[in-house]
């Protein structure tokens, strides 16, 4: 009983600590962002070689439910990825240039993912993935394995309706 209480306390403390770290990161990034903003703003003003740019307000609405980390029924809402080990590494490295939709609709084995990554590095400016490469490939082949469809699949997902002529 005592041990359980102790564990609970430990967990609570962990939670609190996590929140504190997150809040610190948030404040730090907002601060850096503002600094950058001020810095760049003055640069642009004083540099007469810069083309004249008209500044306008564009309303940008971010819905309340637009929480990046939201997971529902094992699916990461923002990207559609299956929640599993390696998902965050995949999001961080594979959705900067293209959509997660391009990853999800492709089904390849480890060897072909490897050569696809190599191709992206050679031609599409993808960086060296380091140790994440193995993690990402494992995530992809585990969660999106190739399916055998044969030479012609049966018609599926037929929505039946009454045809009136």
């Amino acid at each position: 009983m005592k041990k359980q209480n102790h564990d609970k306390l430990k967990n609570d403390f962990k939670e609190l600590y996590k929140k504190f770290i997150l809040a610190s990161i948030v404040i730090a990034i907002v601060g850096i962002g503002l600094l950058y903003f001020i810095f760049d703003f003055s640069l642009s003003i004083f540099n007469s070689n810069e083309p004249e740019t008209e500044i306008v307000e564009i309303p940008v609405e971010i819905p309340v439910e637009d929480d990046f980390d939201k997971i529902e029924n094992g699916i990461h809402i923002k990207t559609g990825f299956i929640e599993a080990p390696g998902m965050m590494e995949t999001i961080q490295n594979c959705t900067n240039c293209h959509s997660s939709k391009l990853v999800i609709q492709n089904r390849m084995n480890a060897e072909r993912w490897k050569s696809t990554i190599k191709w992206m590095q050679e031609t599409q400016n993808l960086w060296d993935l380091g140790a994440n490469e193995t993690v990402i490939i494992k995530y992809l082949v585990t969660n999106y394995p190739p399916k055998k469809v044969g030479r012609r699949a049966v018609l599926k997902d037929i929505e039946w309706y009454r045809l009136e002529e």
Partner: protein
Amino acid sequence: MKRRSFVAKSSLGGLATLLGVDIVYKNVMPEGYTPLALQDLDPFKLFNKDKGMVVLNDKPWNIEAQAHLLDDKVTPNKSIFIRNNGLIPEDIDVEKWTLTIDGESVKQEKTYSLVELKSKFEHHTYKLTLECGGNGRSEFDPPAKGNQWTIGAVYCASWTGIRLRDVLEDVGIKDDAVYFGYHAADVHLSRDPSKEPISRGAPMSKAMQDETILAFKMNGEDIPLAHGYPLRVIAGGWPASVSGKWLQRISIRNIVHDGTKMTGTAYRVPCKPVAPGEKVADKDMCIIESMPVKSLITYPKSGATLSKSKKLNIRGHAWAGELEVAKMEYSIDFGATWSSCNLEKPANRLAWQHFSAEISFPQEGYYEVWARATDSNGVSQPMLLPGWNPKGYLNNACHRIAVKIA
């Protein structure tokens, strides 16, 4: 302007949304800049597409139609698939838009304004079939890499423009010209300005055809932005990637054009047939030219249920790349027997042809209506998938719809 790239970078990670960095920077966003939040907008509204279209990819945008959305003889914008290799150009200024013709095989480089092109050369209007080389890719086994198109990456719109041939004759082309290659205003996914998302082309024989045009109108109106506004190459019957959008430059080459997606395995198939899954060296891959014979049943939509006393009227379109469709048939017994359809002549060369048939069903039950076109060389659509190829191009297996008689 460093600002734009900073906005772009900052919204890449999840924290940007969490922190509302976008809101901080909205005040300094230059006019005409398309906010990245565009990625989250409703693509159907953004591109005026039918709600039934299917989004395969939102960065870059790739959206396909469904067979029943392609029922019109001339496809309206709302049903036209979008295939992008890069990002749609921002800040297009038509007043300043120019087309430059250059390359090893021009007698001299020449630049035209858009106004000049429209006033100097004769206008022509053609209905031209454009199909993505990868249409049908989703059916290949083992699966092929790329956007998993089903059947909806094809359409036939009415295009108005000037002949590429007329422009090239005005510029003056050397005898050693082999190929034309286009260069366009779209932006590489990595936003690296030194990279082109796509720069393809075709042999001079295709460039010189009557129907190969530089178009500025689609279906009588300005070309929609997603389809290449304000100027686009249209090379009907070939993989739609030859019809370069947002056209700024055409290079007349004395070699086969070696732009992005001309080399390696892009838009290429094995020169010799290979077994499914076989590795093919780049040197054994050949460039796709004319698209193969194919057809679609566009009415009724798959899943129709009707009573036995009713006859079913089907209709659709058939096309055959550079060739004409000579014969159109349907089968309701899984290809055991075939009956002919009425087939119309094309509105002009390289336009798809319309077919129709009236079908009676012998008894109640589940049926599939299969459609099979045969081109003017006697080549028909296969019932199973055609030869496997590493990139999943040229699937012209016959289209099938499900019908129930109850």
